[in-house]
């Protein structure tokens, strides 16, 4: 055990520390519950979106396969040169129970047939459909990136909180209580010793008084 001074002052300090630790633990527990609730709320949508993304990816791959098979991979590659572009996203932030999470703001990646950059006359609808599927997949990926980062940060925060609560519950608070108990016992012990000493002194004084009285009588 940490070296503590068994004084009343120290005991009062320890008691206030215990109170503070218990309040902190309760607050952290409440925060953790709120975070878990938030986590599961997002998780439900995320699971559905994740399945949606997998489905979209399968459909996009199939559309690309059909386009390459029927129209020749060189035609698809040629069209891809015309559609190459950058995707701009603005990343802002917000707080969920003190946890900073990203908010991705972007325009939809999906384009119509006139915006893809290649002429419609020489390009088949199969290539257009493949482009469309991949645009939808890209939209979903960007949306999921926001949700996934939020979930990861919330998860980390929940884990960190749980560790803090456990540390308070199982190490800090018991240790403080142990120290307070030790101080209390030490003080009580010292009080008992003082009482015994006082009684002893009182007895000595009384004995001395008695001796003095006997001497004066004789």
């Amino acid at each position: 055990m940490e070296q503590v001074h068994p004084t009343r002052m120290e005991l009062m300090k320890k008691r206030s520390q215990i109170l503070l630790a218990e309040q902190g633990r309760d607050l952290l527990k409440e925060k953790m519950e709120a975070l878990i609730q938030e986590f599961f709320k997002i998780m439900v949508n995320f699971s559905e979106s994740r399945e949606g993304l997998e489905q979209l990816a399968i459909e996009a791959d199939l559309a690309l396969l059909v386009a390459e098979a029927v129209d020749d991979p060189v035609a698809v590659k040629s069209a891809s040169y015309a559609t190459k572009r950058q995707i701009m996203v603005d990343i802002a932030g917000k707080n969920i129970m003190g946890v900073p999470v990203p908010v991705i703001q972007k325009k939809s990646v999906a384009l119509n047939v006139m915006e893809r950059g290649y002429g419609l006359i020489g390009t088949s609808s199969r290539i257009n459909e493949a482009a469309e599927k991949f645009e939808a997949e890209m939209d979903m990926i960007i949306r999921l990136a926001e949700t996934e980062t939020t979930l990861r940060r919330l998860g980390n925060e929940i884990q960190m909180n749980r560790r803090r609560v456990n540390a308070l519950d199982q190490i800090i608070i018991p240790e403080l209580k142990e120290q307070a108990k030790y101080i209390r016992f030490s003080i009580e012990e010292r009080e008992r010793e003082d009482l015994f000493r006082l009684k002893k002194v009182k007895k000595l004084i009384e004995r001395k008084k008695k001796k003095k009285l006997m001497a004066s009588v004789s």
Partner: protein
Amino acid sequence: MDNGYVNARVKGMYSRLLDKGSLSNLILKPDISSLITALEDTPYREDLERALVLKPGLSGIEEALRQNFVRTIQKIKGFLEGEKSERYIAIFSSRWDIHNLKTILRGKRIYVPSGQIRENLIPAGEFDEALLSELLKQPDIRSVIDLLATFDVSYAAPLTEVFPEYTEKSDLIILENALDRFYYERVIGLVQGKSTEEQIIRQLVQTEIDLINLKSILMMVRDDIDPDDGERILLEGGRVFNLKKLRVMLKLGSVAGVIESLEGTPYRFLEDLRSTEGDNLKISAYQHLLDEYMIRHAVRLYRGDPLSVTVVIGFLWAKYTEIMNLRIIARCKNALISPEEMEAEMVYV
């Protein structure tokens, strides 16, 4: 015009095309290796041996198919060199010039290395290797157009005409539309004669224009494109649809409406598909039927006048279809797609 000798050679080549039974056997091959082995017993053996040295597996097969196609076109051009019929073959082969030119323009716009652009070119058209190499060496779109003008290539004119608009809007569609429009206007101009074979070829090109317009309208209507913007894409000179009719179709506002408006035209078969499959059908499903119609229409020319150049045109379409079918088989085999799904994408002639 008597194309007796050429047609006899072409008929020999046609007889070596794979029939439905051979294609069905290829579909049933378990993997790419056995497909390659089976293709080695066909006229593709020589191209396969050459292509597989550089590219293994699926890429090798696709390269071999492309090489075979280029070789076939060049062989036929060789038969017809100096003949009047040569220009009819150019009608068919020039579409690969358009593909090559578009690929170069697209690549130059985003500074793709020349080597990579070259991999996506198909030298089956009128552009020779030297011209393609020179075009690839150019640093930007402006220089590509200038070089076309220097070499007196006809495509320079439409590109030069719309280049200021392209510079202003920086929209590649402007250049591509000008190229496509020029190609079809030129082709229609080439077959304005009154001879039977020119009439037949003109009808084929007009049908192709109709089908392209129909496909474009379906895609634009589905994506709610403003009819005024959409009009820029439409091609003049169709067999059934004139520009007025096309504009009306563009304003119909729904795919179902457009399909219903085909009643009474040779393309009403799209309505049958819609009535069996419903309104949520993909445009590619309609395009598959349109492509099939075009291919059947073109391949039928092979069975026309045995001395006409239309035999050659019919053969080229049949060859193009065979190569497309083989590519579908190879791609689908590689991706473990079922034979039924594979056959749904194929076209038998």
